[in-house]
């Protein structure tokens, strides 16, 4: 349905995005994962026709939309990272305006407003000004505004940034329903791994402006099928122990966590005895040891050498 080929964007000679190729099938929910500055927002700007690529192409149903963006714009809804609303107006007035600019009026307009308000669960508070809303409610109106013209594809650029867990959960469930029940094609960017794991069928991982891996969640996790993750919970930080583990030739990745150390080691490699010996030598007190199969977060760490929120 929607595909990009070799998308590249340069600013003053510096490439912010380089050679991004991806596709979305109708009704799919696709995640675009990457840390801050990876080039996700620039990629989205090009796909949504807000920015013209330096090179490459964006195609909708096989037809390029770079030169003539109107076909894309009529089927596309974009939820920007910022709260793109008129805060002095009510939710109803905002939606009324965003419906009007798509040519809606009269009863169809009011029906569309009530439909999207129901989707985001704000029918009861539609007559209140947006500036009085909580962060989560503003985010929901932000999504509703992108839904007014009943788009086929919706692009969401980190729609849950800066909101409480309850609102976040509400929005995620809402996006899931839009995708599964309303058949909307979703391109979802986030740097919250758990959101992408929960919502998306396929994932593209971006770093430094390029896609470094892609596939279904299982396919990506299979990258680490020969590895496993060991979580070591310690009573406090032990920098010397961490440094020694990091230097160990059998340990693929080592990262300090809030509670201790996380290691990625070859599957089947019996390393626990060695780890305990090292801890003993550094007089480190181990509180808990947990061996897990890899998550997407581990895949990301493996591919980029850094955590998503770095």
């Amino acid at each position, binding site marked *: 349905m929607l595909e990009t080929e070799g998308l590249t964007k340069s600013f003053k000679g510096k490439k912010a995005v380089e050679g991004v190729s991806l596709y979305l099938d109708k009704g799919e929910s696709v995640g675009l994962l990457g840390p801050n500055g990876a080039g996700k927002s620039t990629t989205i700007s090009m796909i*949504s*026709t*807000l920015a013209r690529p330096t090179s490459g192409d964006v195609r909708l149903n096989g037809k390029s939309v770079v030169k003539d963006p*109107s076909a894309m*714009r*009529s089927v*596309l809804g*974009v939820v*920007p*990272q*910022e*709260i*793109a*609303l*008129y805060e*002095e*107006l009510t939710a109803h*007035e905002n939606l009324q*305006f*965003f419906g*009007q*600019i*798509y*040519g809606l009026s009269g009863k169809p307009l009011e029906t569309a407003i009530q439909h999207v308000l129901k989707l985001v669960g704000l029918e009861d508070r539609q007559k209140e*000004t947006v500036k009085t809303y909580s962060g989560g409610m503003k985010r929901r109106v932000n999504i509703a*505004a*992108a839904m007014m013209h009943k788009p086929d594809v919706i692009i969401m650029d980190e729609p849950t940034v800066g909101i409480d867990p309850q609102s976040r959960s509400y929005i995620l469930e809402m996006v899931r329903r839009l995708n599964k029940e309303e058949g909307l094609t979703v391109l979802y960017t986030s740097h919250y791994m758990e959101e992408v794991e929960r919502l998306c069928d396929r994932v593209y991982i971006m770093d430094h402006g390029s896609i470094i891996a892609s596939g279904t969640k299982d396919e990506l996790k299979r990258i680490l099928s020969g590895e496993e993750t060991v979580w070591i919970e310690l009573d406090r930080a032990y920098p010397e122990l961490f440094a020694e583990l990091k230097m160990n030739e059998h340990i693929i990745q080592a990262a300090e966590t809030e509670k201790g150390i996380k290691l990625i080691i070859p599957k089947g490699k019996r390393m626990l005895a060695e780890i305990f010996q090292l801890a003993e030598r550094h007089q480190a007190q181990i509180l808990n040891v947990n061996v897990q199969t890899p998550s997407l977060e581990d895949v990301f760490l493996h591919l980029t050498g850094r955590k998503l929120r770095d």
Partner: protein
Amino acid sequence: MISVFLLQWQRFRRAPFMVLSFLTLSVVFIGVMAGANTGNSLTIPAYADASLSETQQAEWLTELNRSDNLSFVLVSEGEARQDVVDGDSRMALQLLADDYRLLVVADDPARFEVESYINQVYIRELRIRELEEQSAAVDVRERLDGMLEEPAMTVSTASLDGGEDTFVYDGQLQMLFGMSLFFSVYTILFSLMKIVEEKQFGTWNRLILSPLKKWQIYLGHMAYSFSVGYLQIVLVILLFKYLFNFDVGNQFGLLLLITAVYTFSIVALGMLVMGLVRTPQQLQAVVPILATGMAMIGGAFWPIELVSNNILLAISKVLPMTYGLDALKSVSIYGEGLAALYEPLSIMLLIGVVLMGVGINAMERKA
């Protein structure tokens, strides 16, 4: 375009404070400054030192008090100075044998009118005295008065636009037009600031992704800023015309036309400014400097005819405010018709078109 235009009015309805505050400021400033500029009851304390005898002081006062609008009262120097310091009098006059000093505590626009009058009285009196000294006749003053009462020939001089060296100063209209045009700059530029805000807060991208064309979005914003600025000027003029009986002449239609062209040129100037600034905060810093500078050089605070600096005069030639005020005063004070307005209106339109083109281009380059 209509939906963007109506949206701005809807936003104005929810947050009218900014526009209403500039409207109120216009009214207050004009009321205070022009009300004090009517000249009907302006009393000026005058004083002299020992170099002038009581008779000489009385003679000067008699000459000065021939005015219908000004009243000069002889007081002691200390009293006159104290009156000015306390704000009881706006200025005081020191009488000298063949000269004078005007004591003004603040830059009062009325001083132009007062000084111009005193200057005329002194020049006339000193000429008569010189004539008396050089003439053998003893009754020069009486003969001169007699001749002036029954002149051999009457020469009437009329000037349509004030000419090179003379102009008609109407304090009320100067303040009315000057202040209303000045405060409209704030209203228009701050209204256009919504474009910068939309770009900063992301709503602009929503509009771009909609079926609206970019020119429709710009036009919607410009139409709103134009209408709000235009209404502000017209409301202020109507208020002072009908409520305070300001004589703005009998060609109100022409005043509306001039105001419309002036407002268009300021909207265009605003578009240029929007193209140059990046954030609303930058704009808030730029607008007062621009508006005040333009008002000072363009003749909103005092008549441009009083400015003699060639550089300032050259700058004033590229400011819409100069032409707006000139055209408004031509119609109201000199009773000029449409034919005399072709030049100022054309220049304002030209400035408007050029600034708008450059401004939109700058905005698009920045995007």
